[in-house]
């Protein structure tokens, strides 16, 4: 059940045209000079992601990992039906806050991207962007069987099957859907991984950037953005 | 009595002339009206200077220079009238010339047709 069967895969023979606003164009300046604008190069930073080494001192890195584990800020981004299971975590019954888990509205301030269920190709594009805009170190948790093998959408024309072909997943929480208790247990597990210093998904993404990009581009038809969204 | 009648006649002529000049649209009639009015003015002028029982202010053998002041009427209005008549003639001539030019322009002598300049 690979994603890359021929019904699903993008037609790479014919170039999909860029969106109008992303196409290079000529613009007249106020002084009457005509200049070239290449939106992709002019508007976006074209740097590739870097591999960030750990701190030189093991003690410092240990402290940092402890802090990262106890201050998990989740990006408030619901992708599939699993998003509904996130809300109870804020309630008195589950109260994830006591574990240092909080929600942030902007990727810039979040470390944890929870892919909460099936991911359509359209949403994948947004998820990639959101993930790339989060600062390192960042963690991805896949929720439910849809992120593992497509689940009930295994033969869908429109959803991806294996999340870790597109983003480096640190942890899956199985179930359809996993209950909030399972989520909490999963987050506890993630904390342990982080504490051990093994949650280096961002570095893995940077190291295998080309592979991830090739996979992403093979399913996303109108790739009208830079390779890496800073 | 005589000066009063003359003066009344003069004013009557002035009013008639003015009435004529201001009610007729024909330029020639207007000019005529003004001529009548200026004649009236001349009559008034003369009547103001007239003194009963005196003679004309002409210094000849009939009126010796020595007692002229007592025997002639006031000569100044007479002189004024003469001047006024001459000037009136000039103005009337000019107005008639204008009437001719106006007629050449518009082939009409109706004053109310020459109102392009206004406001």
């Amino acid at each position, binding site marked *: 059940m690979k994603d890359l069967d021929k019904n699903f895969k993008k037609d790479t023979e014919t170039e999909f045209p860029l969106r109008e606003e992303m196409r290079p164009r000529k613009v007249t300046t106020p002084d009457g000079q005509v200049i070239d604008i290449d939106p992709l190069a002019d508007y976006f930073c074209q740097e590739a992601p870097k591999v960030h080494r750990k701190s030189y001192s093991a003690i410092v890195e240990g402290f940092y990992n402890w802090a990262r584990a106890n201050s998990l800020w989740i990006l408030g981004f619901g992708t599939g039906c699993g998003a509904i299971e996130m809300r109870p975590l804020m309630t008195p019954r589950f109260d994830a806050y006591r574990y240092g888990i909080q929600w942030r509205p902007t990727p*810039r301030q979040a470390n944890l991207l929870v892919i909460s269920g099936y991911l359509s190709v359209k949403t994948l594009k947004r998820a990639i962007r959101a993930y790339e805009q989060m600062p390192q170190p960042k963690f991805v948790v896949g929720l439910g069987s849809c992120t593992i093998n497509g689940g009930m959408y295994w033969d869908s024309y429109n959803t991806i099957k294996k999340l870790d072909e597109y983003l480096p997943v640190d942890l899956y929480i199985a179930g359809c859907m996993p209950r909030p208790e399972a989520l909490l247990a999963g987050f506890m597990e993630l904390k342990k991984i982080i504490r051990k210093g093994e949650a280096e998904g961002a570095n893995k993404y940077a190291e295998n950037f080309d592979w991830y990009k090739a996979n992403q581009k093979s399913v996303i038809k109108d790739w009208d953005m830079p390779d890496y969204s800073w | 009595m005589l000066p009063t009648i003359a003066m009344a006649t003069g004013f009557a002529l002035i009013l008639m002339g003015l009435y004529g000049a201001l009610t007729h649209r024909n330029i020639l009639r207007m000019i005529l009206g003004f001529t009548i009015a200026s004649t009236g003015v001349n009559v008034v002028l003369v009547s103001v200077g007239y003194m009963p029982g005196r003679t004309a202010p002409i210094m000849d053998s009939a009126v010796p220079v020595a007692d002229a002041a007592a025997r002639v009427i006031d000569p100044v209005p007479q002189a004024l009238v003469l001047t006024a008549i001459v000037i009136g003639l000039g103005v009337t001539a000019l107005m008639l010339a204008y009437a001719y030019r106006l007629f050449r322009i518009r082939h009409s002598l109706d004053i109310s047709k020459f109102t392009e300049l206004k406001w």
Partner: protein
Amino acid sequence: MTFEWIHIAYAALTLFIVINYGMIMTALVRKIGARVGGRYGIPIWQNYIDLAKNIALRSKITHGVMYYLGPVFRLTGGVGLLLFVPTIYGSVMFQNFSYAGDLILALYFVFFGTLGMALGAGESGHPHSAIGVSRGLAQVTAAELPLALGVYAISLQYQTLNITEIVAAQQGSIFNWTLFTNPLTTIAAMFAFVGTMMRSPFDVVLAPQEIPIGPPTEYHSAYLALMQTNRVLFPVAKVVIYMNLFFGGATNWAEFAIKVFAIYMVSVLIGVVYPRFRVEQSIRFFLKWGLPVGILAILTV
């Protein structure tokens, strides 16, 4: 008073105490909120952990010079505000740099951080930042008005602009506090206090999902760490001013801790009870309620 090098050490000590106090107090306030809602709430050290986490982030971006300087302005504003106001009445150590200026300095220096932050947020190029700034500035013009009137009223009352002298005049008995000698002024000023603490009902500036937390939406890592530090420091510094002006100041750190907490809780209590205002609603609110009270205050003082 003139400058001596030891003042720097004293100022650093004040700063250290206040930052730590602020860290704990804001966490405590959140915890109280959670308990009221039946939750356990965040750990009391959570602010420290978040700070450490943010500093520990590895990748950072910058949008430009002003973006970089924004948090610096912000924290300088908070630190400066604290240092321009005497913290503990009667203590030589905690007079800070209050000889640099009087009440007016404190009143206007509040805007220093706001301006820098707004500029930094502006350079990020994010429209939501600008929207947040626009809302915040619009709201603050109306919200600060009762405070300005209140400050004017108490400086008329005490015939001085010197904060230490104002605190001195309130010593002796609890009934010497401005709160009791001039309640109208205090009420007017508290309007402004509630209005500028970035809590509901006046927190549409930060509307977390509509304009993802407004001005700081692009900030992260150490930038955010500086802003978090300011977020715990600045309210305390502001409360110190209110405490000095209206609630008799503090003669020792214990009194300081209690009074700051109590005053801070005013905005918290109002915040948990009332829903959010739109910007024009809050402007109208301050003009309709805050302004008349302020005018009464300056007319009756």
